[in-house]
């Protein structure tokens, strides 16, 4: 038997503290948005007596299940501002957090397959440019130069007529992003408490003053809900309703391959998006399953359809082996835009409704949620995304730019 | 009025040669043909009413009254599509059939509509027919659950159609006209494998 001692365990990135009796701010949900919220509460607002409560393990929900696409080419002014702010933060975060989470600005192509797609896409390119988002319209030949493995021949069922291209878009390694935020939060004194499920809210009149958890009651000055997938369940426990439906969203990866796919390709029309992760897996996602579901799994026919679409667009994928499929739970709002802001309960704020697009907004969601929790008022970026828009009618209808069916 | 029957073309006329060429012989023989221009009449009528009984009399038997059920009388068949919806398929003149049924319905609640151009009829037959359909139909076609005289609306691949088993190894497929080309090509592709020895 070898007598070589085991190597030293690497330093933990964050502590595992027991919850204190109370905090100035409690963030419910230890995914990307929750961690980013805590990070910016500490960094921008000087609040460090904060807890992030996670019912499972850190970043084990949608943060572990998304397909890591980052882009800001949304149609409407309010969305473009929110996502472009996020993209600018992404560009600085690896240095700021001192953590290389493999943010790769390899560009994203959003394909157009019909005349209607072409019109919508060129409109979006023009809107993007007016909002300072780098966007270009490429015809099919130019698309082929960006992504040579894409089938741009005119004889397929939904031929590629062109695409919007955002060169600054890309992908990042999602779990490294979570760990980077968690380490930075921890260093500023934030308590990250895993396996601590919030089961109820403690109120003093109209105001929330704490949360009931599986690890006891925890007092709170303010509470933020960043628990995508379970936002409605928490809102119900707090005594109000959200215009949210929770749907399964599936994704899959292939076995590892040599680099073949240089960019990110999304097709709204045939319902597939594909990129290649740094390790080499082809990463693909589809639209949501139609029904409500908290099961973190979806239906086989959705996966089948998405793979059929992928093979038509990328003939080279035909012999790739599927390694793993999985599902998450996405909060879908009526206008395919998020809800970030105050709730009917004083001191309780919500960040939810990102549908399939939460990962890319992690930094700006955290930034604006932190601002809202710290000041009690929305940041200019999230002011259009308040809950009251469903009463006023000032919806932010992003169904077209959300890239997959909502 | 011009005689349209000399001008009209069936939805699959351009694929008849391909369909004949795709015929498979041997243990798992299967072939597909189009039976174009059958009269098809949509009936909407409350089951169990006097109007339903009168329509049955015109058609030559009691109307089918539940999922999967059919009624046949000579070259005429009636399939159950829904609780108050039936489809008549017949080798007949659609106009006179529709007129006779309209008269039987009278002013009672219901509808009789000539939908002959809505769907075309494919016939898939041979010992291999069930294997071909099982490649893309979610309904259980095993004899324990399906058999001659059973018809259901379902899908083949992505295409909705009426699937009607008329004999132990014969199925009628009624896709809508605009999907017929896809269905015929799908069948030709699915049949090809049966021409080779079965791989156990």
């Amino acid at each position: 038997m070898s007598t070589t001692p085991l190597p030293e365990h690497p330093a933990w990135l964050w502590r595992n503290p027991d919850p204190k009796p109370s905090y100035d701010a409690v963030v419910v949900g230890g995914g990307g948005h929750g961690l980013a919220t805590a990070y910016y509460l500490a960094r921008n607002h000087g609040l460090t007596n904060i807890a992030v409560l996670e019912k499972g393990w850190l970043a084990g929900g949608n943060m572990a299940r998304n397909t890591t696409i980052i882009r800001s080419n949304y149609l409407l002014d309010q969305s473009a501002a929110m996502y472009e702010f996020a993209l600018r933060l992404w560009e600085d975060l690896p240095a700021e957090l001192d953590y290389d989470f493999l943010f790769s600005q390899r560009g994203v192509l959003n394909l157009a397959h019909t005349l209607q797609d072409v019109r919508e896409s060129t409109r979006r390119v023009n809107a993007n440019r007016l909002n300072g988002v780098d966007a270009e319209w490429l015809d099919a030949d130019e698309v082929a130069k960006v992504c040579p493995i894409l089938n741009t021949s005119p004889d397929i069922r939904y031929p590629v007529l062109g695409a919007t291209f955002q060169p600054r878009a890309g992908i990042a390694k999602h779990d490294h992003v979570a760990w980077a935020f968690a380490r930075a939060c921890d260093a500023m004194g934030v308590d990250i408490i895993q396996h601590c499920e919030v089961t109820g809210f403690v109120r003093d009149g109209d105001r929330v003053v704490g949360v009931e958890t599986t690890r006891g009651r925890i007092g709170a000055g303010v509470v933020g809900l960043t628990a995508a997938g379970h936002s409605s369940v928490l809102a119900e426990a707090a005594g109000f309703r959200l215009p949210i439906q929770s749907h399964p969203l599936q994704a899959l990866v292939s076995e590892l391959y040599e680099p073949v796919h240089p960019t990110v390709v999304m097709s709204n029309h045939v319902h597939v998006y594909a990129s290649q992760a740094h390790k080499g897996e082809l990463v693909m996602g589809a639209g949501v399953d139609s029904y409500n579901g908290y099961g973190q799994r979806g239906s086989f026919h959705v996966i089948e359809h998405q793979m059929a679409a992928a093979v038509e667009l990328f003939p080279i994928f035909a012999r790739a082996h599927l390694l793993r499929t999985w599902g998450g739970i996405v909060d879908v709002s009526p206008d395919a835009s998020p809800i970030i802001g105050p709730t009917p309960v004083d001191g309780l704020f919500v960040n939810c409704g990102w549908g399939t697009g939460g990962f890319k907004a992690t930094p700006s969601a955290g930034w604006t949620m932190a601002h809202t929790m710290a000041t009690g008022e929305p940041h200019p970026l999230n002011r259009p995304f308040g809950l009251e828009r469903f009463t006023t009618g000032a919806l932010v209808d992003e169904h077209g730019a959300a890239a997959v069916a909502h | 009025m011009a005689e349209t029957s000399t001008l009209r073309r069936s939805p699959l006329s351009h694929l008849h040669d391909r369909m004949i060429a795709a015929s498979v012989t041997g243990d798992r023989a299967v072939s597909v043909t189009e039976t174009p221009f059958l009269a098809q009449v949509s009936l909407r009528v409350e089951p169990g009413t006097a109007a339903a009984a009168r329509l049955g009399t015109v058609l030559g038997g009691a109307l089918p009254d539940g999922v999967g059920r059919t009624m046949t009388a000579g070259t005429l068949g009636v399939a159950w599509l829904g609780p108050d919806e039936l489809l008549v398929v017949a080798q007949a003149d659609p106009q006179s059939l529709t007129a006779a049924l309209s008269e039987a319905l009278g002013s009672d609640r219901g509808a009789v509509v000539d939908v002959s151009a809505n769907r075309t009829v494919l016939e898939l037959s041979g010992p291999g027919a069930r294997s071909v359909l099982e490649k893309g139909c979610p309904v259980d076609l095993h004899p324990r659950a399906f058999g001659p005289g059973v018809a259901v609306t379902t899908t083949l691949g992505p295409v909705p159609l009426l699937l009607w088993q008329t004999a132990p190894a014969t199925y009628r497929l009624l896709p809508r006209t605009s999907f017929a080309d896809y269905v015929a090509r799908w069948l030709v592709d699915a049949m090809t494998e049966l021409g080779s020895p079965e791989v156990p």
Partner: protein
Amino acid sequence: MMLLTCPWCGPRNETEFHYGGQAHVAYPERPADLTDEEWAEFLFFRDNTRGPFAERWAHSVGCRRWFNAVRDTRTYEVLAVYRPGDPRPALGDAVPAPTPAP
């Protein structure tokens, strides 16, 4: 894969159905009398139950009828199916599936 039992056609593959969201949401009797809040509630707010949920489905490629189902949104188990207009059944009283001919 989810097998759904249509009250008229029996058990069929999920791909034959279309989802219709929460069941038993009545159209307001006098929409013009509603406040903006009440109208928003009707238009945009639906239950998002984690557990048994009464919801609408249409057998869109089959008999084309709408019906209701109680389904557990955690396990996707269908606990009951019933015809539109019928009250939501007590759990355990699943409507027996019709037997397809023959």
